[in-house]
Every structure is written in C-alpha cells, then in structure tokens.
C-alpha cells in the first residue's frame, strides 16, 4: 500500500479533485445531501496533491490545529482509518467540520498551493476520512481516564458544549449536558439544513459521546428550569460550562415586519429543520407554503444561504437573496453561494429594504427597496453602500426571511447577574481559559463571540475543558 516516487512536479500536475454533487435541478427539489463525498480514488488523488511541506502553514489556519499534513499522507497511503484517528486527536467532530467549515478562509487559505495553484481540498479530505470511519463501522471509542469524582455541567449542546463535554469525559470527569430543546446539537440540528449536514451524522457523533458516558438531559432551560447557582450549589456540580449560542434573532426595525409571511431565519429554519415541517402533514408543525411563491431572504451570511435554498426546495417560484452590499462582501461560504446559484437562487445585490407592504388581510405582498452603490471604505475596510437617490421600487414577494444576525439570549444574564456581559450582552471571558467573572463558571462559542463558526465554538469548548480540568485537579497551568 502506498505511494512511490512522486515528485513535487507530478503532485502539482494533479488537478484539484471536484467534490461530486447531486445535479442542481434535482437537488433543489429534495432535502438530501448536496455533496456526495469523495470516493476512495478521488480522495487518494487529492491527497497526492499535498506537498507534505516541512513547515505546513495550513495547520496555522485551522483553529484547532489539526495535523493536516499527517492525516493527508495517511489518506494518500490508503490508511483511511488511521487518517480519521489522526484528525480526531485534535477535532472531535470531523465529519461535521469537513462539511461546514469555511475552509477557504481557514486551513485552505494558508495552504502553500493557494497562491499559484488551487489549495489542497483539506475539508473534503477531512470529511472523507471521518465518513469512511463511521460508515464502515470502525469508530473506536477513545480511552477514558479513571474517574476523578468531579462533576461538570455543560449548558447547551451545540458544538461548543459537545467538544467541551468530550474532552472532560475523557479526562475522567462526570459530565451532564443540559439542553433547552428536545433535540441535541444546537445550530447543527435546528439551523443548518439536512441537505448540507445530514442529521444522522450529528446524531451518530452525539451517540459516541453518550457511549463515553456523557449524560444528556434535554428540555432544560438554564435560567428558567434551573439556574447556574442551583447547578453549582444544589445539584453539586464542581464547574459549569455555558455554551448557549447566539440565539436571539434581530429584526430590521422597519415598518411591516409583523405582517403575515415575515419570518426570522431562525424561525423559518427551526420549523423546517428541527420540526421537519417540510414533511407536513406527517409532522404537525406547519410552515408558510412556498410553492409557486416569491420568497426573499434579507442578508448575505450562511444562514441566509441556508434559508433561501430551503425556500427553493419548498417550491418557491423565485427565491431571492437581497443584500445591501455587493457579492464580494457577502460573509457566506463560497461553496454555499456557488451551490445556491446553481440551484436557481437569484441574487439581488446592493439593495436595501425600507418597508414591508401587505394586503388588507395583513399578508405580505412586497418589499419596498432602495438601490445602493458602493462608496468609500468604512472602518472594517469594506466599501460602504450608499443609497442611490430616487431608486425606490417595490419587489413583489409573498414571504420574507430576515437573516441579519443574532444577539444573545438574555435568560442567563437575567438570572446570574454576577456573570459579566459586554454591551452586546455576550459573556466576557479570559480567552486563555474561557473563565467568566463568576467562580467555577466558564463560557465559549457564540455566546462569547457573537455568531461565529462551528470550529471556533469547538475550539472554545476545548480551551475551557482544559482550564476546567486544571482547576478541578489543582494543576497550575503556568508551571
């Protein structure tokens, strides 16, 4: 097994292997996964493109520093299981990150091939190795250290909470995860759609944690069902990790936002993904019937792409992205924008909604929009959109989805006043330990950063787990 005598030149001659995907005209009518995954052949070909750099710069682009060169070498040699295990030394959810990481801004951006050639498809390879391990039934549970007798509570079962729970259980602590919803996984289950991240994968990852001994309790809202103080004092936990995400949808504050047919992205996606309303009436939760209707999603991030592609799949005649800047400024992953366009999503750039308009039954009929042009760069270096005079017009739509971001849910803040929060209500932490201002309480993920990424949330969960472990075991981190 393995590769022999392959020169750098030959490696560079191999084109970047394309991820096989469902045909756009078929997939925009179903909820099955869009990307089909590399075959072993494609994965090995792609792996051969990696130059095995002495100083693999790609690793510095990965927030959890996966040993990218090493796992790719293992794939090239056909040692797929070893590759998966190598990845898992640093990342517990590779099948998920390989699918949803914004690789072009992270690991792949730092790959030496990026400048002159195309970067190695690190994300696709990561996904391949993880899928191979899982689908061939070869997942081996990591060893768990002897019990320490310490109990840690994790609030929220998103990527931050899951990765924190994973590290702590392996270190021998007993871990309980409290989740507000009836399903585990956070945004991975209620936000990101099935066609981008199959829920079976999320479930099987969580299954692994369960087998390691993590206890999951759903339907518990911290701050309402139980407070952080009660968890520490009454339930006898030694430490608490808060990973409750950024779940408070912002609205635009323009007239007509309460009309029928206007949704937040969170509501629309939750209805469809978590409550499976795309299977209505077999599932009881309804959602606006998009069939043959015009739907506009306001925003340009991953959430907006997920919402608009979902609307298209529910049968929308026109599914628009309405964004106030230009396409170059859209924060969504390139792959999602590309996929959305292939599926027939229409992009209306440099356009700002002023007002929603409805009929006499209060159903939405249109959005009054203003056209914009790019002016001078603002503080963030992005060119600021400025309105074009007298360019107002009405975009006829039947449903609107507002996807302009999320703030922080106030429940923990209200019930635990001794946890310091910022002006934006995010929890303030020491970034080296993720410790909050409250003794024995740590936090990480979107509740600290505001809406960010899966891998950053996971990284935060790991940092916190390490600090919690050191604190509980009396290890001085600075020795």
């Amino acid at each position: 097994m393995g590769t022999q005598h392959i020169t750098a030149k030959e490696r560079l001659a191999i084109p970047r292997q394309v991820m096989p995907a469902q045909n756009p005209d078929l997939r925009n009518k179903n909820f099955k996964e869009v990307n089909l995954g590399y075959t072993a052949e494609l994965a090995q070909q792609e792996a051969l493109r990696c130059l095995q750099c002495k100083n693999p710069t790609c690793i510095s682009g990965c927030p959890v520093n996966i040993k990218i060169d090493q796992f790719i070498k293992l794939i090239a040699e056909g040692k797929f299981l070893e590759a998966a295990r190598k990845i898992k030394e640093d990342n517990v959810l590779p099948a998920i990150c390989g699918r949803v990481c914004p690789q072009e801004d992270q690991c792949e951006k730092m790959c030496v091939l990026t400048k002159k050639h195309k970067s190695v498809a690190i994300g696709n390879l990561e996904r391949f190795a993880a899928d191979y391990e899982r689908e061939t039934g070869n997942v081996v549970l990591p060893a768990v250290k002897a019990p320490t007798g310490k109990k840690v509570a994790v609030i929220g079962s998103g990527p931050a909470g899951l990765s924190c729970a994973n590290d702590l259980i392996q270190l021998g602590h007993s871990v309980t995860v409290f989740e507000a919803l009836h399903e585990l996984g956070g945004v991975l289950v209620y936000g990101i759609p099935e066609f981008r991240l199959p829920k079976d994968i999320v479930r099987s990852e969580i299954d692994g944690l369960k087998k390691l001994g993590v206890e999951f309790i759903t339907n518990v809202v911290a701050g309402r069902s139980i407070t952080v103080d009660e968890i520490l004092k009454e339930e006898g936990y030694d430490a608490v990790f808060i990973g409750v995400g950024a779940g408070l949808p912002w609205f635009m504050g323009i007239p007509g936002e309460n009309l029928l047919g206007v949704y937040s992205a969170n509501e629309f996606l939750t209805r469809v993904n978590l409550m499976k309303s795309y299977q209505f009436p077999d599932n009881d939760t309804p959602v606006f019937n998009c069939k043959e209707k015009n739907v506009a999603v306001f925003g340009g991030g991953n959430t907006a792409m997920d919402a608009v592609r979902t609307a298209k799949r529910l049968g929308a005649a026109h599914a628009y992205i309405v964004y106030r800047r230009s396409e170059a400024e859209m924060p969504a992953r390139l792959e999602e924008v590309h996929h959305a366009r292939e599926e027939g999503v229409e992009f209306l750039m440099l356009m700002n909604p002023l007002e929603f308009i409805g009929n006499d039954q209060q159903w939405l009929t249109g959005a009054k929009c203003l056209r914009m042009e790019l002016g001078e760069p603002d503080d963030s270096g992005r060119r600021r959109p400025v309105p074009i005079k007298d360019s107002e017009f009405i975009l006829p739509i039947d449903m609107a989805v507002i996807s302009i971001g999320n703030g922080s849910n106030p429940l923990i803040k209200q019930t635990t006043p001794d946890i310091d929060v910022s002006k934006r209500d995010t929890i303030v932490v020491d970034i080296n330990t993720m410790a909050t201002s409250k003794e024995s309480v740590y936090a990480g993920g979107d509740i600290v950063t505001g809406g960010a990424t899966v891998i950053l949330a996971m990284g935060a969960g790991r940092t916190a787990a390490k600090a919690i472990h050191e604190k509980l075991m009396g290890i001085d981190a600075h020795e």
Partner: protein
Amino acid sequence: MLIIITFSPYRKRAKLPPSYEIEKQMHKIVSAIFLAENIKKIEIEAPRIAKKRKAGQFIMIRVGETGERVPLTIADSDPEKGTITIIVQGMGKSTRELNSKNAGDTISDIVGPLGTPSHIEKFGTAVSIGGGVGTAIAYPTAVALKEAGNYVITINGARSKDLVILENEMKAVSDEAYITTDDGSYGFHGFVTQKLQELLDSGKKIDYVLAIGPIPMMRAIAEVTRPYNIKTMVSLNPIMVDGTGMCGGCRVAVDNQIKFACVDGPEFDAHQVDFKNLTDRNKVYMPEEKQSAEAFAHKCNLL
C-alpha cells in the same frame, strides 16, 4: 514515473449505522379528567418544573415524536408529588391529541417553566377575569394575588353553564366571585365586560385587572378599563415554536415595539397591545391547521 495507488474496496457510501435516540425521560400522566366538554385537566409528572414554576408561567409540550411544540399554562403544581397540572381546550390537532390521553399514558417532551412570572404585588382590589379556558390560565395568578394580600374579585365567563370550569377553585380564592354566561343559563346573563362595567358603575374602586381569554374579550376589557386608567394586564397567546426566545415567531407589538411573548411575556399591559396584529398573526396557518385537524379526526374515527 509510475504512481502506484492501492485502492481500498470502499467505494459506495454504506448505509449509516442506525442512529440511536437518547433515552428521553418520558412524562407520565397521573390523572386526566374532563372539566367540561372538550376541556381536560391533566396532571403530569414533571418534578423539576413543579419545583420552580411561578404563577403566569407556561410549558411547551410535544405529545409525540412528530408533534408540534404547544404552549400551555401551568395551572397548578405539587412540588412534593413532582407533578404539574394543565387545563387544555381541544382546539386543533395537537390539543385534541393531548386531550385523548388518559392516566398512565406518557408525553415525550415537556419544557419549562417558561415566560416571565406574573407581576404580583399588593395592589388593593384586584380583579381576575377569565373567559373560557382563559379561566384556567387566570387561576394561578388569582391565587398569587390573594396570597399577596389583595382583595380579589373573580369574574369567569363561559358561553353556557356546562362550559363553566374551576367554579369552586375560583370561589375559594375570591373575596367576590362572579360567573357570567353568554346565554344566561348560569350566573350573570352577559359578557364578562358587562359585569366589570357594572362593578365600576357601582362605584367600586378597582386597582388592578388581569384578563385572560379570547383576544376579542381581552381587547374589550382593555377598552372598559382605559377610561378609568386602571392598570390592566392580559396574557397573550401568539403562535410559538421554541418558547425560549430563539425564533421570534411569538413577537407581538406592544407600545409599537417588538416583544417576544415567550420571554418578555406572556403578560403585557393591555392598553399598549396591538390586538389586531395578534389576531391577524394567529391566522397564519389556518389552512394547515384545518388539514391537520381533519386528518386527526379521520384517524380517530378509524380507531
């Protein structure tokens, strides 16, 4: 130069291993009895919630694996026994399915207590008004108002005598208790608003009004008390999904601002609520609700 690659037999995507379901703590129904036609009182095991809940709070309940999340007020609780009581009116598929359950049956998901508890203080004379199943929602707050030392007047309305619920419970917490029926078959003949107006006309000094019932009723009560400047609260029932503040589906317009009923409410100042918007928004899924209800009725007939 030759590149030799050994291919693994792995090509086709294998089927995923069967995903497991986390073992849910199912909630057992301890007792379930009809109080009136279509209105059932259900006592369910939910120890954590029983311990924590305060008047005015609610739960989200999902009857089974394909069910929707439905908000229901916690009418009562027994922290020792670890149970809560809900009073449910069969409206559509979900509430009718719930009302078809009996003692011994189980419910898959219950989360709570949710919402901001009722604001309770010693106002002086407090009137609690319940319309239909709203009486059940008003009941716990009436109890709390009494415990806070208020002179409590309750007015409970129903369409007719056989739809009157919680009569004895309400009497027990009231200094004055009135029943009204639309058809005059019991108590005062007329609407709860008329009874309230009568009390005001008789010169009774009222310091606080809590009104819970159908939207037109709450809206009418707001108009009765507005000229007198009496602090009036209503409990709103917008359509909810998560009940934790995550989706914004439950937003209501209060004083021209967006509020999330599940975290900021469900109780709001009646004089500032945009009732028309709430009425409209609650109609958004009418065709789907009808479809679900019909399918459920059909299924029941087949059983």
